[in-house]
């Protein structure tokens, strides 16, 4: 049987989704369901003097109103679950509803539960709250000033943590021939999966069981954390997330809202539903990025890079969200030297509290920030020494024979062939020809530019021992259970929790390949803590390398046991059995064989099993990877800037990615496309803006520019395949590469186009207004 691995197979999950039969959280209907709505602070920083909910409580249809004080002692605080070591981190208390003080626009003040959503929302309007408005700011640099208003008593100077890593002493920079310095602002982004967050909770008083349907990327983490917050034992909590409409990191965190819904369901003895409005999504679902970075990159005139160091002010928002402290530290700084042989690297990171929505992981989480600054700096360096930016990259890329390679921060890159991906991308683009064409077009007065990024990313998070060492308050292994039924059909239970990535298909491919059975015979079950023993979920491009590997190991265990039974049936030694084409053969006597189905049936009948072999046929694995995996690649963009309007047109986009072995090219390409669009969104369109008072000015789709279909050309994508040496599938991650690489690629291209104006940097997003303004200021050099 030809292997199904590596085939462009269409997805098994599609028919239900294309026909509108998916089961998203807001689709859940239960008898007696009531609705929750949350009153949110209109102020960025204020003391709550009084909350009067008496009118709301009297309204027809209102079942209950709770304020922060009502919850005290009944509901635990919202925890932070990533505590970078040696960082003096201040995990300030975060109550599900604010008590005495609100710290950002959107902070919850009261919870209403009513018989309909409209009544619940009406009731919000008649709750009167007296606020004493306090000074505050959404800007991390202002928040660190000595006279800034303090958000939390335990965090003087609004410093949530200070964390340093690496070694890049002054004399490296003093001795280098060239040092380029730049301040870069990584603007704040709003994840905006198309499905808003939602939760439905049902409590069974007689059994004490709490079921929560939730938009979650990691149901078991939610079970673990919500059990603590609610004070319900973990085995009495069930989290269900069947179909989730995109996450991009925003559905990792444990938010107050899910805890409130569950609390109300228990108090009232009625099932309760809450679905955020898009406005609420903008205000309260975690944001991403938001760094101010001061960077120095040192090198010599021959193009060699010798050192990089960066000081970062990372805006954490008003509270520390679940994984937030790990994002601008571990996930950012350790990859700072990127794909280059830079011997010295250091990062000095301040996490800062501000009166803004908490930040946390957003597609790429830390790695896009690191890649962006590095790739922008490499271009500035190339410009400084008058070398083609592609040549600078070629010169510094880690050569193939140096893998496994230890980067300056101590990470061990598992495998790579960086020059191959670079060459392939250049060839696809016709780079030489393009550069000639560019000079010709420039003479005609056209502003065209080409941008390049070579990147490496940490994915496949990750060995649990390392997770512990870097302060992640959880494991990062994955569970998998392969249950072969008596008829030979297979149900797989995975701790990965896909929400668009297609693992119902790729995981079925892994099993079908190893058991030589049709794809249709394999069902993948995910997203239900009662059906799956444990799982750490889907984020950090970990599902295929970690969850997939767990599945490969579990399936091998099935094959091993099946072989024992087959040997017994064939009356031969186990070592004489071969498994091929779905049958177990006697070696050298292919006529003597039993089918996989014969064996599974015998395993269950158990009439005549070999001594010491238990009935049934199941394989389980709890797979902990020995290392991260490191995907890499080269992206190139060709842009044209409109001289009169400053508008950037993306004319061509080339992506060559290497995620190790590609299990399903169709799905992998889809991941790359989506990532590119999100990364270009940051480069050209998206950005959260707060005003001086901490009001979010970009709080709707009318103000926050989401990438649309007509902004993009057809992408030209390809893969090189350099297997990871340390997992059974040879795979790496592909979910975030596009987002990581495309932002600097496009900005580098625009800066290249603007070279005649002597423009060095434009803060993202590169809107027509900003680009046009930079051209006016720069003035034509040529």
């Amino acid at each position: 049987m030809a292997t199904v691995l590596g085939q462009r197979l269409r997805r098994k999950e599609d028919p239900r989704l294309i026909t509108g039969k998916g089961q998203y959280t807001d689709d859940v209907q239960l008898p007696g369901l009531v609705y929750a709505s949350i009153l949110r602070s209109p102020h960025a920083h204020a003391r709550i003097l009084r909350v009067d909910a008496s009118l709301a409580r009297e309204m027809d249809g209102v079942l209950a109103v709770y304020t922060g004080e009502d919850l005290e002692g009944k509901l635990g605080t919202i925890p932070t679950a990533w505590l970078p070591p040696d960082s003096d981190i201040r995990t300030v208390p975060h109550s599900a509803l604010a008590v005495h003080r609100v710290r950002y626009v959107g902070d919850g003040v009261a919870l209403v539960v009513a018989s309909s959503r409209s009544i619940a929302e009406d009731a919000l309007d008649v709750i009167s709250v007296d606020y004493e408005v306090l000074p505050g700011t959404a800007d991390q640099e202002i928040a660190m000033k000595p006279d800034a208003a303090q958000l939390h008593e335990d965090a003087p100077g609004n410093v949530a943590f200070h964390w340093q890593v690496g070694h890049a002493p002054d004399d490296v920079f003093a001795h280098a021939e060239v040092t380029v310095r730049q301040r870069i602002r990584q603007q704040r982004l709003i994840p905006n999966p198309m499905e808003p967050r939602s939760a439905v909770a049902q409590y069974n008083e007689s059994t004490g069981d709490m079921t929560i349907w939730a938009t979650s990327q990691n149901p078991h983490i939610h079970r673990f954390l919500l059990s603590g917050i609610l004070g319900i034992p973990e085995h009495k909590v069930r989290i269900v997330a069947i179909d989730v409409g995109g996450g991009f990191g925003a559905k990792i965190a444990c938010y107050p809202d899910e805890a409130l819904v569950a609390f109300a369901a228990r108090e009232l003895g009625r099932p309760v539903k809450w679905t955020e409005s898009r406005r609420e999504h903008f205000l309260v679902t975690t944001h991403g990025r938001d760094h101010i970075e001061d960077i120095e990159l040192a090198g010599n005139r021959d193009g060699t890079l010798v050192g990089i160091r960066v000081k970062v002010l990372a805006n954490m928002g008003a509270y520390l969200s679940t994984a937030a402290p790990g994002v601008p530290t571990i996930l950012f700084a350790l990859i700072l030297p990127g794909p280059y042989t830079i011997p010295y690297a250091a990062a000095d990171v301040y996490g800062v509290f501000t009166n803004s929505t908490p930040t946390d992981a957003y597609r790429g989480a830390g790695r896009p920030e690191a890649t962006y600054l590095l790739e922008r700096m490499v271009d500035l360096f190339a410009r400084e020494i008058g070398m083609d930016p592609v040549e600078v990259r070629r010169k510094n890329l880690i050569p193939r024979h140096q893998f496994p390679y230890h980067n300056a921060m101590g990470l061990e890159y598992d495998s790579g062939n960086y020059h191959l991906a670079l060459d392939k991308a250049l060839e696809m683009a016709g780079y030489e020809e393009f550069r000639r064409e560019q000079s010709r077009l420039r003479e005609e007065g056209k502003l065209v530019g080409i941008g390049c990024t070579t990147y490496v990313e940490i994915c496949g998070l990750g060995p649990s021992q390392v997770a512990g060492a870097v302060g992640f308050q959880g494991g990062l292994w994955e569970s998998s259970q392969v249950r072969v039924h008596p008829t030979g059909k297979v149900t797989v239970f995975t701790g990965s929790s896909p929400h668009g990535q297609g693992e119902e298909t790729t995981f079925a491919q892994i099993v079908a390949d190893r058991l030589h059975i049709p794809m249709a015979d394999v069902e993948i079950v995910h997203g239900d803590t009662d059906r799956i023993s444990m799982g750490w979920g889907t984020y950090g491009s970990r599902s295929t390398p970690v969850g997939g590997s767990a599945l490969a190991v579990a399936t091998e265990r099935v094959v091993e046991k099946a072989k024992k039974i087959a040997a017994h049936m064939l009356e031969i030694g186990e070592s004489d059995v071969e498994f091929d084409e779905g049958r177990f053969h006697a070696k050298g006597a292919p006529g003597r064989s039993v089918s996989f189905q014969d064996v599974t049936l015998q395993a269950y009948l158990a009439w005549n099993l070999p001594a010491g072999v238990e009935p049934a046929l199941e394989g389980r694995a709890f797979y902990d990877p020995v290392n991260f995996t490191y995907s890499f690649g080269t992206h190139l963009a060709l842009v044209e800037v409109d001289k009169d309007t400053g508008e950037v047109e993306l004319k061509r986009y080339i992506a060559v990615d290497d995620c190790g072995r590609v299990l399903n090219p169709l799905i992998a390409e889809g991941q790359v496309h989506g990532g590119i669009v999100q990364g270009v969104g940051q480069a050209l369109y998206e950005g959260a803006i707060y005003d001086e008072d901490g009001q979010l000015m970009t709080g709707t789709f009318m103000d926050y520019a989401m990438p649309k279909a007509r902004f993009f050309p057809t992408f030209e994508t390809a893969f090189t395949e350099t297997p990871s040496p340390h997992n059974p599938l040879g795979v790496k991650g592909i979910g975030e590469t596009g987002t990581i690489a495309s932002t600097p690629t496009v900005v580098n291209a625009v800066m290249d186009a603007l070279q005649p104006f002597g423009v060095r940097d434009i803060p993202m997003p590169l809107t027509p207004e900003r680009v046009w303004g930079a051209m006016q200021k720069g003035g034509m050099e040529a």
Partner: protein
Amino acid sequence: MSDAVISASGRTPVRMEVNGVAETVYVEPRWLLSDVLRHQLGLTGTHVGCEQGVCGVCTVLLDGVLVRSCLLFAVQVDGHRVTTIEGVTPDEGLSPIQASFQRHHGLQCGFCTPAMVLTAEALLRTHPNPSEADIRDAFSGNICRCTGYQFIVDAIRGCSEEER
């Protein structure tokens, strides 16, 4: 428009043809068509992403024309014909456009997909052979956060007359 009086319960009857079936639903005048489809009629294939008319995920056909069901009150469609994703799905299997979405991997999380399929239906009815630019323009009111749009474009080209 509904000329029915509001009953004592505050609900007014709305008669509409939904996916070929005559329905009468009793609604509050302020209820959105999107909510009535989802929660009164159980047609949860219509999704809601912004309730502000911008994201397009609530798209349905009203008398064959694309509308955003979050921008209409249910009472406004009294006497009209509404088609949702459930209405364009054959009893068995997939419609040609749906099949093309699967073939070309035109969806990831699937949340925007029912609206994309309906938008494609409407486009292909008026432009049987759209160019890539036509398609990208036609979808400028539908946001997809997952796919990067390219495979959606391919899916629609893949079932245009020329390629069929």
